[in-house]
């Protein structure tokens, strides 16, 4: 690349680079300022306080509880989603009658807003007049109504299950894309060599699908980590903060309690965690494109 070309290349990406720095950089700057200052509830900066807001956060048991639950939540939703989406994608990849309709049905939760889905689930799970209790009673599975959302022992796993349900469409789409790119001839060869379906899955599908699984894993982690509507609509972190994750507690800190400084410090912690995953994702994506270029 000679000098003129180099300058031209820079000149061409400069506008978008400047825009990106402005859009991404300014909010980060703003949050850092708020996190290191005393801030009133309307966002006005007062004195510089250094790391005092972080210290408040570290001393707050609800923060640690929420952090722990955020990892359980993210791990549960992402793990469950990947485990379910791969077999679903493999099934949908086979050619069978009604595949089109089934694909649409699997994708449907994606089309409905997350908040709407959560509200419908909240009604369904209502202990007094919810549909779930009625169905279970009609089937004779339970004798008495169950209060699904009154204790964290029941409510939190249920929230994770709903999280899995709404994450499946995206993940299945990624996997379907991956599956359709797998070469058919190696399966043929494996079949001739006497490999059964399970062996073909373990030795061919899984390794070939790895890059897609990795991408789905990281993207899901980033989405789910900050997912707000399900928990907010179903339990709002109740009872006694036992279903709060970082993002729901963050909302309470910032908008209900007016502790903008502490909330900013907390969002920086969340930003740091997510940055790790984003870097992993960026590196994976780069390696992919390098490998693709090498082929």
């Amino acid at each position: 690349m000679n000098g003129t070309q180099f300058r031209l290349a820079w000149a061409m990406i400069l506008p978008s680079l400047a825009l990106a720095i402005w859009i991404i950089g300014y909010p980060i700057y703003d949050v850092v300022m708020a996190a290191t200052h005393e801030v009133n509830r309307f966002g006005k900066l007062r004195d510089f306080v250094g790391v005092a807001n972080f210290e408040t956060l570290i001393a707050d048991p609800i923060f640690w509880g929420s952090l722990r639950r955020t990892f359980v939540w993210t791990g549960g939703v992402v793990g469950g989603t990947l485990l379910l989406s791969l077999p679903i994608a493999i099934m949908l990849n086979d050619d069978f009658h009604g595949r089109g309709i089934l694909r649409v049905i699997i994708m449907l939760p994606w089309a409905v807003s997350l908040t709407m889905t959560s509200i419908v689930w909240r009604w369904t799970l209502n202990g007094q007049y919810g549909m779930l209790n009625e169905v279970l009673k009609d089937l004779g599975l339970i004798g008495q109504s169950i209060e699904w959302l009154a204790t964290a022992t029941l409510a939190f796993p249920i929230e994770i299950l709903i999280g899995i349900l709404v994450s499946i469409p995206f993940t299945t789409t990624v996997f379907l894309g991956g599956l359709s790119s797998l070469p058919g001839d190696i399966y043929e060869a494996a079949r001739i060599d006497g490999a059964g379906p399970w062996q073909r899955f373990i030795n061919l599908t899984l390794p070939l699908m790895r890059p897609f699984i990795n991408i789905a894993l990281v993207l899901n982690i980033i989405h789910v980590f900050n997912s707000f509507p399900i928990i907010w609509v179903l339990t709002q972190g109740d009872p006694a903060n036992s279903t709060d994750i970082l993002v729901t507690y963050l909302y309470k800190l910032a908008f209900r309690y007016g502790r903008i400084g502490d909330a900013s410090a907390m969002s920086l912690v969340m930003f740091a965690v997510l940055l790790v995953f984003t870097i992993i994702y960026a590196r994976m994506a780069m390696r992919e494109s390098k490998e693709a270029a090498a082929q």
Partner: protein
Amino acid sequence: MPRKAALLCSCATMGAIALGAVALAGSAQAQTEIRVIASHYSDQTATIFEGMAADFEAAHPDIDIVIEDVPWGSLQQRLVTDVAGGTAPDISIIGTRWLVDFVENDVVASMDDYITPEFKDRFIEVFMDPSTIDGEVYGLPVAASARAMYYNEDLLEQAGIAEPPATWDELKAAAEKIDALGDDYYGFGLQGAGETEADAYWYYSLWTHGGEIFTEDGESGIASPEAVAATQTYKDLIDSGLTQPGVTSADREDIEALFKQGRVGMILSGPWMRGQLAEEAPDLNYGIAGIPEGTQKATYGVTDSIVIFADSEVKDEAWMFLEEAAFSDKWRTEFTLKEGFLPVFKSVAADPHFADDPQLKAFTDLLPYAQFAPLVPNWQEMADTTKSALQTIYLGEGEVEPTLAAAADKINGILK
């Protein structure tokens, strides 16, 4: 270079859009615009405020009133972000419990320069107090309510109870009889969750047991012996199976729904329930009585306030709108009647609609005993701390005294 030209072009387009925006703003400024945010009480709220605006605009053709109707759940967040972004409205309804935070940060304007003694005299005094801070009026009570006990007359009759319970002991005895009617019936509806007033449901018990949210020396009173007794009363009802199951997931709408379905004997609620019952459960026979007593009478008085923002450039006109339209007898009667609140104007209270209503008497009789949410900064966080402690106790995951004591400590920490 064509690319540079394209870039210049797009800059020029953006400039033109910006100019257009300025031009638009300019044309609107020919008229004085007053932006009003009304909180969504019901589907009628917007219509009522549009009506006020139409009346006012007819009298002042040079003023344009813009009404926006915002749901309660997002109102606080909306106002905070608007103020932070420098785009606060001129007038808004707020929960009076937020007022101290707004006043402390100089967000709302004092009304003392505008308010005349005659105007002030039109309000029922007790409702004016919560929005008066250090002797200055910062908000006008726009919606007022008190709480009382709704009881299902049919269920009480079936259970052989002649009179609605007047004390917590009587309530427990009544709840036992109602509960015995069948699996689907519960004696007492107890709210333990939700964004609105999960803590307030406990204050009814606290106050009637003689407790206070803050003691006289300004410390949290939620771990006092009276508070412990108040909590034991509820805990006892829960543990005896006399409330609906799942107290810690039941918000206000949940227990009100149970009452409308005729499945719960008694709940504590506000005057708005009457309108809802007439609409949604017209066949339900119910009565309204005072909140059961422990050692004394009490009710929770709640007002919402209408405020003028400090940054408003049209405060004079905003006040005119409040005085001439929003707080005219006509619109006060209309609003109070349609939204189902208690009158805040003496003249409205004297209106036959209200004066001759025996059910409303249950609420107004309690007004001399009304307690209001304390005017302290960071109230919401304290209320949530209380709610959290109560949920722990209701679930049986913590003993009454130590759990309340820990919450009181935390609240004292927030106070400092």
